[in-house]
């Protein structure tokens, strides 16, 4: 199985939105490749005719009754927000300076 290069590790970290230090990237390159080597064992098995299992109990299409129930109090939910303005959570700008 092809190994992860340093550039791959940096790319995956970016996809995962993990800001990693140079030292962390160095360590992860070795560790992730060591773990990926273990994955190679699965290639020994012919699974072409085997269906995947996503969950182990046969529950399907579980829907709740369509009735109105109380939601959490706004104060309780907003109490954890790092930045708020009135009854709103302040989020970082996502459209950039020019668009605002």
């Amino acid at each position, binding site marked *: 199985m092809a190994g992860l290069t340093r550039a791959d590790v940096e790319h995956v970290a970016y996809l995962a*939105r993990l800001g990693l230090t140079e030292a*962390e990237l160095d360590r992860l390159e070795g560790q992730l490749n060591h773990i990926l080597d273990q994955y190679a064992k699965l290639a020994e098995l012919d699974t072409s005719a085997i269906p995947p*299992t996503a*969950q182990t109990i046969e529950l399907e299409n579980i829907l709740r009754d369509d009735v109105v129930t109380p939601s959490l109090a706004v104060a309780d939910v907003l109490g954890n927000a790092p*930045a708020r303005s009135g009854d709103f959570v302040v989020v970082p700008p996502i459209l950039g300076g020019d668009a605002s």
Partner: protein
Amino acid sequence: MSAASTGTTRLFGHEMAERLRSGEVSCRGLVTDALEFAERQNHALNAWLVIDRERALADADVADRRLAEARRAGAWAIESLHPLLGLPVGLKDLVSVRGGQCTAGSRILEGYRAPYDAHITERLRGAGAVILGKTNMDEFAMGSSTEHSAYGPTSNPWDLDRVPGGSSGGSAAAVAAYHVPFGIGTDTGGSIRQPGALTGIVGLKPTYGRVSRYGIVAFASSLDQIGPLARDVRDAAALLHAVAGRDERDSTSAPIPVPDDLIRLPASDDEAGTWLEGKRFGLPKEYFVAGMEPGVEAAVRAAVGAIEAAGATVDEVSLPHTDYGLATYYIVAPAEASANLARYDGVRYGHSVRLEGGDFIADYLATRGGGFGAEVKRRIMLGTYALSAGYYDAFYLKAQKVRTLIKRDFDLVFERGFDALVAPTSPSVAFRFGARMADPVAMYLSDACTLPVNIAGLPGVSIPCGLSEGLPVGLQLIGPAWSEAPLLRAARAYEGITADAPWRGVEPAGLAAADIPATPTPAERVAAGAH
């Protein structure tokens, strides 16, 4: 330490319940003893992240009033009290308790206050149980030693230089050290059973879907399950009975009845043991893995001998895909974790970094890079890679197919009529701090005997079966889906036939040192070992 000075802490939960009903002890008395031990020994053990003295005593007084009312009303009112009324319990710090912290062992949830109670918190409060506090754990339940907690490691009460296992190591240590008779853990790959084994107590992972996970911090949603830790099987069964069952707020909790047999396990050891006559057990040969410690294998083989001597048959069976469990698990679990942990973005709650310049991606990178620990980052990286474009079929889909094969192994064996499988819980006894921290794969192998059970969604229980080099060994019993009642009946039977074994009643050797204020903290032990 003299027996008198341990107060009520050595009682089992069911013994505490009897004494509460007779009026021999008060709940305030029980909880005061529990608090005294937990507070005094936490310096040396770091089993607890929160000990909520005020709330626990207030809840104890409520329980005492209910007990007094019931005694006035008569025998029927005493009979109808919940089995857990007034009994102290510790919750792993990923169970939401409204208004309290819920860190999941992570810096990224530092300062977060749960806005609601978890389903199991509601159930325990409804039962009148007293929540003593929140226990330490590997960050987001990722680990087998509790060394991956952002709040420092936990010591094993049997040897303070060793880990209690993980990820539910805090609950296991608190129960093994007699702080509380009941602990709640979660088990994604062995995180209840392995620490149960390493601390010499009972730990049950129920069938996937048995207990609602509403209000529990998620790790890997197709594997996670909540379960009990206790010092005997009857207590573990009673705690499961109290929290199990369908809850519409968790669509994966199953509408399967919870049998009352769980609270009717025989009190008599002799009666319990006779159940084994004529029962059939399978011994999966693949679970005696390479690298298993000889002392562990000897204790497990001796347990098998005792089960046979009690009139059961034990036949060797094969679960041929066992060896593929580790790779399957370490694709499925990190993949699901990488999705579940995407929610920690520093916007709505938790650790948050807002940099100058208004680049929201930079904010995410800083928030998550600073908030997560090394093991969590490793798993997020593995999961993100395994799910990324071009690799999904090779990793995640492949692992899901092998998952089918592993599940079929169990199905085929149980179709042959075995009542349960017997196996080791962990290939080793409790290991020293630092022993597996440098090599993630060595740490992952700690769960080689437990994680196939999660992959297949089955119930498994670890019960003490002896000592190796003075440290506890766990015997794992594995049953078909929804078989908790007979599985715990089997575990109770094993407890019955080994009631007089010399290793029963041996107290954890580290407790005397844990009582002394000058004893180093677990973090200090780790630092000393690193030099």
